[in-house]
């Protein structure tokens, strides 16, 4: 790293020090009282990423270190910026639908659900119940898949290689169901505005049920590897702590918020799709540390299985497509709709000018907002913890940068 960049980034770090002080005094107080370096040693500024194995893509974090202790961070993002919002303004509502899958590609179904529901809201139509159920099943399957991916990579960051392969093995079963349903595995484009494009294939319920019976012991298998593992506990307990108040102030949502003790899940708070019809719990943590976030996500997978089980057993008959015009032309107006994506609140703010293309489409990406909390979470920790915390926030750079 050149001296020039050093200077720029350290200036940026200093200025961000001054900024958040009012709202986040706790973490900054820690920084203030941290031992001053005894010798006249230069603070080390190292550049983590964008080509770094543990930054989950092309995240670049500039770390200011004293030895191995983190004095401050600055995230440099945008390496994967594709201008999704600009593209939306130049595509029709239908044409834009596949693009949303490319944001959080680990949870493409959730992205699609959020988008379709937002446009439906703008159109003032509701998808028929059967479509709602299919949506719930696929979205929850995707939530499990996303959490599996998170678990594998997070464990890999902390040094446990093996869980990655176990989670990928089991994620494969979910992807198979997606593939059988809509032909795609990752960027599924499963839903359409007004409902679903495809009726479930013959044996869909059986496949999903098979997956549930297959997967239940697998979660226990993951937990056997990690939950009571001494090293795992040492590496995750009291690491990257964020209090509930700080989390709310920083707009953190999803499992990260819930692990800090805030019992808030959009599926319960403002139910969308068919979620109000299912019985499930919201797992909540107490300490807001990396371990709690791990536990919360593990429990979320179990709760997702509960939802899927109920949905599959009660899936109603009927149409899968609502009465939506061929050409989607919502009335003039603007709408904000958000869903609980695996990573947090995924919102779509759409402004319509009455034409076939969105006048303005804003995506509220959970990863982007959650990533902002990284600085608060890692100050005063060690380099190794930065990796653990990046993992635990569960970011997907496709969504951060859009």
């Amino acid at each position, binding site marked *: 790293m050149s001296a020039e960049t050093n200077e720029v980034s350290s200036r940026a770090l200093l200025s961000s020090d001054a900024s958040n002080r009012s709202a986040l005094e706790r973490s900054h107080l820690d920084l203030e009282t941290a031992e001053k370096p005894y010798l006249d040693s230069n603070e080390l500024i190292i550049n983590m990423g964008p080509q770094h194995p543990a930054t989950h893509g092309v995240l670049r974090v500039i770390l200011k270190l004293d030895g191995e202790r983190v004095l401050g961070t600055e995230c440099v993002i*945008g390496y994967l910026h594709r201008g999704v919002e600009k593209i939306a*303004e130049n595509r029709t509502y239908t044409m834009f639908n596949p693009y949303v899958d490319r944001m959080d590609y680990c949870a493409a179904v959730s992205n699609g659900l959020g988008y379709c529901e937002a446009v439906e809201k703008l*159109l003032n*139509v509701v998808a028929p119940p059967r479509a709602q159920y299919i949506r719930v099943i696929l979205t929850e399957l995707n939530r499990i898949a996303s959490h599996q991916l998170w678990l594998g990579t997070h464990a890999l960051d902390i040094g446990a290689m093996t869980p990655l392969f176990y989670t990928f093995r089991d994620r494969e079963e979910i992807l198979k169901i997606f593939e059988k349903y809509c032909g795609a595995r990752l960027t599924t484009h499963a839903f359409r505005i007004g409902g679903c494009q495809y009726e479930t294939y013959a044996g869909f319920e059986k496949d999903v049920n098979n997956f549930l019976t297959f997967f239940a012991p697998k979660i226990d298998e993951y937990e056997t590897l990690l939950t009571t593992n001494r090293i795992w506990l040492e590496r995750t307990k009291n690491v990257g702590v964020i209090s509930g108040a700080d989390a709310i102030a920083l707009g953190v949502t999803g499992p990260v918020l819930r692990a800090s003790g*805030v019992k808030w899940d959009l599926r319960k708070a403002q139910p969308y799709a068919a979620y109000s019809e299912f019985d499930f719990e919201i797992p909540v943590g107490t300490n807001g540390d990396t371990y709690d976030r791990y536990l919360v996500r593990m429990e979320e997978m179990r709760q997702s299985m509960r939802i899927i089980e109920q949905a599959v057993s009660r899936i109603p008959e009927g149409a899968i497509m609502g009465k939506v015009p061929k050409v989607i032309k919502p009335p003039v107006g603007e709408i904000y709709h958000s869903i609980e994506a695996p990573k947090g609140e995924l919102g779509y*703010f759409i402004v319509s000018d009455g034409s076939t293309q969105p006048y303005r489409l*804003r995506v509220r990406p959970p990863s982007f907002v959650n990533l902002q909390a990284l600085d608060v979470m890692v100050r005063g920790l060690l380099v190794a913890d930065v990796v653990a915390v990046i993992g635990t926030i569960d970011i997907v750079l496709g969504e951060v940068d859009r």
Partner: protein
Amino acid sequence: MAEEVKTPDPTPPLPDGEKKALVEKPTAEKPTASGEPAKPAAKPAAPAKPAGPVPLPWTSPMVEKYRSQYGSGLDPLTYLGQNYLAVDRSLIPDILRLLREEEQFDYCVDITAAHYPKREKQFDVIWILYSFPRNERVRVKTQIADGASIASSVSIWPTANWLEREVYDMFGIQFDGHPDLKRILLPDGWKGHPLRKDYGILQQDKEWVQINLGIESGQ
């Protein structure tokens, strides 16, 4: 106001099934907000005007209080069951602070903007807020002219830091008092603000691309 010049669009047909859905939808949307007097105003909105929804006045004790305090600078509206306040630019710092401190809108969901090049005040800046205690969303909206700046809300919600940076990056709207207002998604030296309507979808900062990437064009 964007919605003042609204022409109700008759496109969405509302057959019986959809009507029913429409009626039950707002209740599903805000189950805990039913205790407030805001609902009776919102509920009959959709069935009363099947031709197409339009923004209606939004009334609630909270809104009344501010209305009396700030007068015409505040225009509370509701559209499809979603409430928003159209606020004059000068009132923005006060309103946001009051919403945060007195009305418990403790979670700033998003800050974004929209560009209307034909208007005199070209930009809408929109705050999407949520209150955990009330389980209620509200949007705050204001219009500002190109080149004008607006008060930063980082001191109210720290999360506004990156969100405002993104708005600055994409629209070029200045936020006064932002601690570190610089580009976030685009590289630092980039020229232009891509989400403005006059920025073409294939447009790019050719100069930057040539200097920094060493290629003729990014496309």
